[in-house]
């Protein structure tokens, strides 16, 4: 289903010299690190509302894993001579964290999984996979490896969420829709081709999006791949495709 337009220069051998593109990778790494740190914070928060000790351990293990991903991205920045810094207080990321904390406040374990595993991880899996295809050397391998690991998280959550939906599909779908309005609206603004709400507070200088073409990426491609992954994940949950299609088409562009 991948549009052919996106198949270009996928071999790392074709990548442009890192010295000229390092500022672009710096911003990409900063966004990825911020996402990973936020995920670690989310899992740590989740561990606080789990009753089952096994679930607590699982959440803490995930939090540790996400911190490891952030460290791996930071190390990749070091290899290319850029310091990638995260900013979980940047406006979009902060909104995403607040949305997750509302689920925590309601002690809604299922809502937490929907936000983290279905929405945020769809974005991570899709965008890391795209970056992994074009980024050179170990940078590309790290993105590809972490994309695969995040996908495993989704698979793990899927069985819990499917079982929950089987109990009351209507109630489950209503919950996903409510969270979609909250979380995916913010993600859609982040993924828009242009940042219309001003600087994202993560990129180091100006917005990185227009420069993505220089590393064989584009903001449109990252958005398209992320929304496609999100729709496919919702399909796997069993939510009717015509319903999720309407949800996605109503997101801001």
């Amino acid at each position, binding site marked *: 289903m991948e549009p052919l337009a996106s198949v270009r220069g996928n071999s790392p051998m074709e990548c442009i010299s890192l010295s000229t593109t390092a500022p672009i990778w710096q911003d990409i790494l900063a966004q990825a690190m911020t996402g990973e740190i936020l995920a670690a914070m989310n899992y740590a928060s989740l561990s606080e509302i789990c009753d089952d000790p096994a679930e607590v351990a699982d959440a803490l293990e995930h939090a540790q894993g996400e911190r490891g991903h952030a460290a791996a991205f930071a190390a990749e920045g070091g290899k290319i001579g850029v310091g990638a810094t995260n900013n979980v207080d940047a406006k979009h990321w902060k909104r995403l964290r607040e949305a997750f904390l509302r689920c925590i406040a309601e002690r809604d374990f299922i809502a937490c999984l929907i936000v983290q595993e279905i929405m945020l991880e769809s974005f991570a899996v899709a965008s890391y996979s795209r970056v992994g295809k074009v980024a050179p050397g170990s940078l590309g391998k790290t993105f590809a490896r972490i994309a695969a690991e995040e996908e495993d998280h989704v698979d793990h959550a899927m069985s819990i969420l499917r079982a929950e939906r089987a109990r009351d*599909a*209507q109630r489950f779908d209503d919950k996903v829709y409510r969270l979609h309005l909250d979380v995916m609206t913010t993600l859609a603004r982040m993924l828009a081709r242009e940042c219309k709400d001003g600087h994202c507070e993560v990129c180091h200088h100006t917005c990185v999006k227009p420069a993505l073409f220089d590393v064989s990426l584009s903001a449109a491609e990252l958005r398209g791949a992320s929304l496609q992954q999100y729709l496919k994940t919702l399909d796997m949950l069993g939510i009717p495709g015509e319903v999720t299609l309407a949800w996605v088409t109503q997101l801001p562009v």
Partner: protein
Amino acid sequence: MGNSVASVANQARSTDIDFALIGHQESWRAAADVLAVLRGPQHTPIPDDEIKDILPWIPPRAVCHVDVGSIVGANARGLYIDSFIPPDRLEAAYVHENIARVRAAAAYAIKAGAKIVSLGGFSSILIEGNFDQLPQRHDTVFTTGNTLTVAFIVQGIKQMCALEGRSLSKSTLLIVGATGDVGSGCTRCLAPLVRRVLVSARNVERLRTVASDLQAEGVQVEIATDLQRFSAEADVVICAASLASPSLLLGRIAPDAIVCDAGYPKNLAPSAQMPGAKIFFGGLGQITGSMKFAPDFDGILNRHPFPDVVHACLLEGMALALERRFEPFSQGRGFITQERVKEIERIAARHGINLAPLYNADGPLEDARHCHLFSP
């Protein structure tokens, strides 16, 4: 919005699906209109350049529910599934990507529990020779819908001849795209009714084989290798080529020739200069019972100047669902016979699915009240 989404979700869960229609949009304008309905009037429309960025990433999926009612009281419930093939990627260069999309749409139809699936437009063209590439499932059958398409093309030709006061038996018929399933089916049905038959296709070798097969069946045809020359000799032309966009130029067409553009997407280039030619869009039928979309895509998915008009390739699945005949009526290439055409015509007519009033890009060609002269 919340309520409407919830109600559609409820319907999706509570409805047994009889049929599914797999289609795609013929133009970016049509695609934009579909997305505008889904987006709802409360949101500003997605800009055209953003649509071109977003649509190629949408996985095949249902767009809406379609309920049809027959004039004899039968009802069938279905889904319209869009393969989301981008309108500018119908060319051969994208064939593998597009087959993958049709396969995914077919898998969606199977998962939805559709008993019969009609393949519309390019979906049918991509799959008619590759049915083995569709997912296998014993309780879901697939039909290209080509037999009913042939039926309505033939009916349209007869209707147009009657409107123009022409004698079909004195006509020279040219079929463009004669190697395809629809083209060869039209040849079989119309050859006994006309004076002379010319057949044309891009692949001359395949055309010779098809012509030889038709001649073995007793259908007399002449191969028209030079379309520019032969189009001047024909006074009835059927354009049934598998073209990704309206790009066909017929050249020096005979004055007052009747031309049926049966493509989905259309065959004839808008720039084609054919002064005096009587052009109509063929292969379209009209539901005289009822058809309802949920959400309401009326006039969006069926963009025709008359109500409840649908491409016959899609109508075939609906007619068979109303008849409760869940069978792969049209499959493969080159198997459409006069007998099969008569059979599907009878089934469709029994449920009030008839030839649509004739029209072309300039609008209706006849008063809708006077149509159906040749309904079986």
